[in-house]
Each structure stands twice: as structure tokens, then as C-alpha cells.
């Protein structure tokens, strides 16, 4: 069925040269404001340098779904406890 495509990133893999994401699991917002951990600041610099690289998208067309369905139709009424909706 669906297919996926990369969206707005200019090149595959380029972003992966980026900075490791720091583990901020235990960090609260009142701490975050003053936190100047080098790993965090590196991650922030990466975002500000290329914010568009965090807007990738993966999209699927539904033509494949139709194609597969027509080859191997599954009755919609087989949904348990439901009729076709």
C-alpha cells in the first residue's frame, strides 16, 4: 500500500551528521531556562542553524491501497462487531 516520501529536507542523511540529542528526561522547565549544558547548547545551535531539517515528512498515496485491495479484496463486513462504515 502506501508509499512514503521524504519531504522538505534537502538531502537524505545530511542531518544525521548532526548533534546527539541530550537526554533531558529529568529536566524541568524551570531548570531548562537557565541550563547551559554544552550538549544542550549544541543541540539548540543545530536546530537554529537548520530548522527546516526537522520538518521531514513521510507521505503515502492511497493508489497502492486500492491496487492491493482490488487484487486481494477483504470484505469490509468482516470487521468484528461492525458493519461496513
Amino acid at each position, binding site marked *: 500500500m502506501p508509499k512514503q516520501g521524504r519531504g522538505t529536507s534537502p538531502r*537524505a542523511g545530511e542531518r544525521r*551528521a548532526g548533534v546527539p540529542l541530550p*537526554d533531558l528526561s529529568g529536566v524541568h522547565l524551570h531548570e531548562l531556562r537557565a541550563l547551559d549544558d554544552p550538549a544542550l547548547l549544541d543541540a*539548540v545551535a543545530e536546530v537554529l542553524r537548520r530548522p527546516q531539517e526537522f520538518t521531514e515528512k513521510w507521505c503515502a498515496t492511497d493508489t497502492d491501497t486500492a491496487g492491493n485491495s482490488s487484487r486481494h479484496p477483504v470484505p469490509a463486513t468482516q470487521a468484528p462487531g*461492525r458493519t461496513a462504515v
Partner: protein
Amino acid sequence: MQLLTPAFGVPPHVFASLSATRATPDDIRLLRAGLHSRRLVLLKSLLAQADRHAVPQWARQRLARHWRLLERAEARDPAAARDALDYPAVGNWLLHALSLTDRDAFADFLAGFGAVAAAVALRTGTGFRLTLEPREGRLTLPGVGVYETRSARVRAVAGPRSLRLTPEHRRAGTLLRAPYSGAGAAGWRPLRRLPGGSAVLDDLDPHRAGPLPPGDGAAWDTGAGTPEARARDALGDRVWRSRWSAALTLLQSADPERAAEVSALVRAVVPMARRPGAPGSATLRSAPGGLLAKLPCSAWELAVVLVHEAQHSKLAVLTDLVPLVAPGSTAVHRVAWRPDPRPLDAVLHGTYAHLALADLWQRLSERRGATPSARAAARARSADYHGQVAPALAALRASGELTPAGASFTEGMRRQHARLARRSGYSGYPQGSYPQASHVAAS
């Protein structure tokens, strides 16, 4: 304050179960923690951008007020606050803000941070008094709803379980009660909750479909906001809710673990317009847990879309924690599920999603109560997906462009692929005996 924050680590057993496309509750907790760490980096980036742009003092003070409300909300109920901050459209809003290069535009857009803080505060029952600024006639509280007004400012006064919104220069406001999901209050349009969980049908947030609002250069046509779309809303809601329930029931009957994974991962479903050639569904890296989709024709189709897009959400977060594709990857590869050659990270995503679908359809074929013809059809679809994945796995392995973690992840997918083959009697591909990989060219 300087700490030595470690890079995010993924334990080997979590990595292994994720590579098999089947996330355990522990895996999902780790992915949520990863998503929240990224969200905090974006929030810190917002502060840094305000410094970099040297925004005016009034905008800086306003940002500080909103930040303090977020801090109070988190102190009152950390889990609820983080959950609200990690709502998909908030990620899109943040990326939109961070992409603004003009100082005045950025300072103006920062007004919307008040609505983000207000939405988080409402989720935690934190009281507040704020003056908020609608954009284009709408005050959007992400994950909660939209207040429509012609006023440039709205006074918002919240208690633990109530919210009063009063347009500037008006005496009477609109009083809303928690959980703010009731329709009928003047100007208030709540997001509708989908049955059986916490996911919502988000057809209101201007950033639901990406960092850019629909109609403002965004790639997605959500078809909402027009008079015709509003006329369709009520009917569309009923059909979406009905189909959602049926799809989850179907998943539950065939594969309860997969149903639990989908329920835990999907936070928002964003309806897209049915237009010829438009995408059927999509996931955005800026908004994991958000799923854009046309209204599927059946519960079966929606179940497939949910499983497919949930894989993209998982992988979007995981690849943020652990790079799987080496820097500078430039080659493109042919895959069985689309005609154009794909870069390696797209091959990785596609392989992962299609492997999960092969698994899904196999389990649907084994579902109790299924008729022989339904079993045969489901089994054939599983075999289709299984066959499509084999050469894609080969392409990934032969690419030489995976990181060591990426190679390990691909090996995990190969093992799952082989397990499906053994279980169903498909022709499997033991290690080292894949079909010919189809490498096209470096671009």
C-alpha cells in the same frame, strides 16, 4: 547552570523489539521520553532565538510570563504538562516560530506561545489570567480547541476546572468547563475526542498539518475552514469516529499488542481533503503521534493507515535518538512500493512500515471468526508486503551507508522478516541470501 547531560541512550533490548516493529509499553515510554527531550530542545531554541533576534523588551517580558505559566503547570502536574507540550501541533508551531528569520515577524508570532502555555495550564488544572492574541480571528489552544472572535485580544481567566474567554472591550465572555470538550458555547469549537482513548480528531489547529498553516504554502490540503467543509463537519465527525472505533476493534481482535501500540502512539488524527493525487496519509517529523489522513473507505483501510503511520512516528523519534543512516548518504535505491528511486532514509522508513503491514495482515488472516475468503485475502496481502520488503532489506544491507546502529536495526528487521516467513511458509531470505539489491545511482 551547567550540567553534563548524557546523550540519549536506547537499551539493546528496546532497540531489538523496535526493530521488529513491535513496541512494548517500555519501548513506548522511552520513545515518549525521547520525544519530550526533543521538544525541550525546541523550547530552549525558542529562548535562544529570542536572544539572537534581540526581540523588543515587551516581547521578551511576554515570553517570560508565558514561560512562568508553563513552569507552574509542570510543577502542578508534570506528566499532564509534558503530555500537553508534546502534542503534535505544538511541535509544528515551534518549528514555524524557529524558521522565522525576520525579527518583527518572530516577535509577533511569539504571542502564540501564550496559547500554548494556556493549553498546558488547562490540562494540568493550573489557574491563570492572561491576555491572549488570536490570529486571523482564531485563538487556538493546541490539543483543546479554538475560540473564534473578531477581537484582537482575548482575556483568559482559568481556574482548576474552568476557563472564561472574554474578547477585549466586551463585558460578557464565554465560560467553559473542563474538559472543555462541549460544543455550543459561543465562539468555542472543541477538538473532538476519538472513542476509546485520548486521541483527538484535529481539524482546527492551523498548525495541525505542518509548521506552515494550511493554505499558507503547506503541502497538505486539509480541506477545513471553508464553508463547505464546515457543512460536512458533523457528518464527517460521525464517520471518522465510527471508522476509528471499528478499526481499533479490528486491530484488537487480530493483534491486541498492535492495537495497544497504536492507541499509545496516535495522539491526533488530522483529516485531509480527498483530492485526486493527494497523499492518502502522512506523518511529520516535527509532530510524531500526529497522523494526517484522508477519510479511509473502511475500517480495514483505517487499521492499515494507523499501523503504517505509527511506524513512521516510532522511527521519526528513534532516528532522533540513534542515527541509523550515515552522514552524507547520497545514493538512491529502487523499492517495490513506488516507481521513483528513494534515498536511503526513505528506504529505511518504507521497509519498516511495510514489514509491520506484512505482520498485520498475517495476524488478520489468523483472526478468529474470519471467513476462509477473508483469511485468503489477508494472507495474500501479507505475502505481497513480505515480498516487497525482501529486496528493500537487501538494498539497505548492501548500501554501505548505514551506521553500526542502522545495520543492527536492519538485522532486527531481517530477523522479523524471517520469522514471518517461517510462520506463514513464505519463501524467506536467510542471512546472506537476499535477492539482488537494486541500487540506482548516487545523486
